[in-house]
């Protein structure tokens, strides 16, 4: 057993909306108040507050932790903000767990808030600096590239059908139609609707993606003894796990989230789960994109690699299927105020495991659930396993849950009599109202950054200026690293030698992108790709393809660098103008065979 036993005793959330009139503080308050009311508790019973919110650049408040503290009940209390990007919402529950498990506090309020509507012209602007400022930003990347490149690799690796993946978006938006907090619930959506939606960055289409949202969620955690005093139906935190993969995202296995498996094994180990497919009854995997739910279900060991899509298409993950996944409606249906969306999954398991999810309740008596989120530069996995009842709990004692107090405001949708009935606000504004709201203030983030590339990348850029691709090698693990690094992050020692590689490589994955980072249409699609330089180890780096028709690009295609004229080179990643096929008319069968592509 790891530390003291910890339970969730209350949960609350705001509606997720596109544009909230409320400030971030007010959103945090609405969720916190709802959780306290649901548990019939006062703020004075809370010993400590754990808060999370994703990038400061969404709210435009560059000290979001303490800024949000008052709305989260943090006044005069031990207070901490944690942050692992999209993984933050589930991670704050992990933070809450160890604050209680360690004995530092008996009762902790965990709050997750996000207000993305403040960020203009598009919240994607806040993401631009997650790309490498030296090697990736000059290419004009768009956040969708990362997902499109990963999704394409996943589809190619296992020979997946887009139709099967789209079934996830349909399931989640239909599930969300029963969630009173949902932004994009739609009971009558079909797979054809998803497949007919705008192509943003192939294979990603508009309805494959979760919406920009504002909202907040809060849960209350307590030690075992206190939890039993507070409620007849505590929901236990049985296991927690988290893991971080390489920060070089183009070096990762884009078809399988190894880090999610490692986080899941950590959580399952703590929870004593040896057969997750039998012992997990309901799952809330992270679903900012439909393929991500499938990716994550495989990483959570709930389906074999590459097998989650056909299970989704067959209804196995439906609310009444063998393994209900995202019965809440997930990020695709309820919405994606980033950090809040992760904690929403913990709240959903709380309601599901207490049998209080109303129209969303999964059949039977689920006793174990798993929630998972994912973030940073798509390489962190955060996992929480939750369990109902147990000795003295709801199912163990046969006690009914204490009835909940009536809502402070009636549920605006009137769709569900069950929790989250204590949900409050926020006030949802139309775009016109948002533009004209009294007292609003517009402020540009008027800053400019200057980055030094450092030793290894500096030498790499010198090489590009000379038309050479330079690598470093690690004698300990035997890897040849492109882009080169001064140290091997696996062996944690300085790299040993420099070497030059030919300017040829292989397309590891690619996308056909039709929009700019702020979602304006491009006249001509662009072809971002991950290129592995021949002779380098694992993965490659981000660049673009040209001199090839989009329909002719294949994963596994052999390519070569096209250099800018010598006089135009400046020691930049753009000294490579682009990569082009080595054979102008690639032999598709050979290329497919080289990539291990499944022939239909």
């Amino acid at each position: 057993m790891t530390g003291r036993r910890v339970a969730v005793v209350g949960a609350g959330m705001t509606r997720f909306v596109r544009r909230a009139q409320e400030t971030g503080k007010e959103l945090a308050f609405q969720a916190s108040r709802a959780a306290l009311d649901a548990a019939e508790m006062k703020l004075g019973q809370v010993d400590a507050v754990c808060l999370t919110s994703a990038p400061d650049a969404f709210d435009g408040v560059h000290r979001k932790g303490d800024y949000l503290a008052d709305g989260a009940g943090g006044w005069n209390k031990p207070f901490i903000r944690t942050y692992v990007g999209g993984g933050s919402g589930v991670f704050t529950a992990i933070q809450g767990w160890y604050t209680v498990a360690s004995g530092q506090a008996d009762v902790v309020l965990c709050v997750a808030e996000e207000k993305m509507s403040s960020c203009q012209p598009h919240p994607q602007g806040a993401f631009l600096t997650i790309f490498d400022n030296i090697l990736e930003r000059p290419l004009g990347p768009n956040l969708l590239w990362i997902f499109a490149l990963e999704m394409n690799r996943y589809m190619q690796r296992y020979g997946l059908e887009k139709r099967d993946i789209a079934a996830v978006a349909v399931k989640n938006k239909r599930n969300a139609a029963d969630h009173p907090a949902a932004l994009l619930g739609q009971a009558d959506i079909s797979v054809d609707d998803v497949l007919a939606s705008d192509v943003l960055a192939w294979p990603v289409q508009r309805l494959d993606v979760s919406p920009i949202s504002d909202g907040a969620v809060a849960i209350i955690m307590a030690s075992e003894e206190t939890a039993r005093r507070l409620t007849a139906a505590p929901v236990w935190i049985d296991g927690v796990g988290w893991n971080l993969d390489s920060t070089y995202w183009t070096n990762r296995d884009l078809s399988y989230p190894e880090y999610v498996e490692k986080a899941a094994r950590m959580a399952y180990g703590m929870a004593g789960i040896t057969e997750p497919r039998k012992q997990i009854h309901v799952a809330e995997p992270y679903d900012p994109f439909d393929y991500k739910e499938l990716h994550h279900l495989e990483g959570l060991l709930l389906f074999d690699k590459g097998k989650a899509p056909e299970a989704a298409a067959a209804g196995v993950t439906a609310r009444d299927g063998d393994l209900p996944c995202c019965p809440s409606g997930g990020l695709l249906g309820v919405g994606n105020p980033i950090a809040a969306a992760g904690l929403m999954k913990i709240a959903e398991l709380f309601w599901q495991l207490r049998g209080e999810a109303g129209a969303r309740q999964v059949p039977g008596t689920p006793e174990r659930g798993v929630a998972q989120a994912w973030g940073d530069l798509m390489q962190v996995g955060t996992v929480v396993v939750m369990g109902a009842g147990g000795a003295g709990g709801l199912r163990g004692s046969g006690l009914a849950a204490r009835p909940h107090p009536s809502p402070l405001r009636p549920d605006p949708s009137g769709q569900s009599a069950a929790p989250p009935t204590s949900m409050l606000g926020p006030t949802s504004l139309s775009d016109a109202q948002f533009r004209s709201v009294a007292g609003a203030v517009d402020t540009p983030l008027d800053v400019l950054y200057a980055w030094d590339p450092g030793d290894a990348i500096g030498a790499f850029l010198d090489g590009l200026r000379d038309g050479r691709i330079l690598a470093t090698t690690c004698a300990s693990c035997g890897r040849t690293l492109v882009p080169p690094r001064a140290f091997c992050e696996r062996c944690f020692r300085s790299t040993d030698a420099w070497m030059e590689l030919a300017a040829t490589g292989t397309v590891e994955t690619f996308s056909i992108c039709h929009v700019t980072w702020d979602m304006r249409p491009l006249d001509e699609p662009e072809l971002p790709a991950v290129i592995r330089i021949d002779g380098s180890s694992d993965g490659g780096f981000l660049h673009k393809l040209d001199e090839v028709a989009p329909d002719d690009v294949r994963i596994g295609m052999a390519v070569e660098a096209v250099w800018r004229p010598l006089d135009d080179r400046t020691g930049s990643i753009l000294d490579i103008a682009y990569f082009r096929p080595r054979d102008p008319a690639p032999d598709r069968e050979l290329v497919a065979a080289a990539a291990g592509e499944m022939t239909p």
Partner: protein
Amino acid sequence: MTVRRIEGELPVAFRYTPGVGNTAFFEALRDRGTFLGSRCADCGVTYLPARIFCERCLAGLVPDTECGPEGTVESWTVARQDVDGRPLDPPVTFALVRLDGADTVLLHRLLGTADIGGRVRAVLRPERTASILDLQGFEPV
């Protein structure tokens, strides 16, 4: 080794909505020229500008408590340079003012001079737009 300086921007701007509490404050200031706060009776604290919750007990609050227009200087300073370090001519005096009836302070301009503890009165602009600048500043009484 070439020394490089690679520049980049974060091309975003923010639109901050004042939220429910501050909207009530700004609308009262614009339409009636009054200072609207909210009071938590349990904690005995009046917040100005109005908030929709008490930070001490998380009770929901209603913006219904008028404060001012006179108040007391809690502290003051004279700014002689702008944010970029250029001289301000004339210098600008800023004060923290606790309006009568409020437990919190407002940061604004001091029009004239007053010591800590000195009494001041709000000076409003005739044309108001629901902004903190609808308040021109505070003048000594």
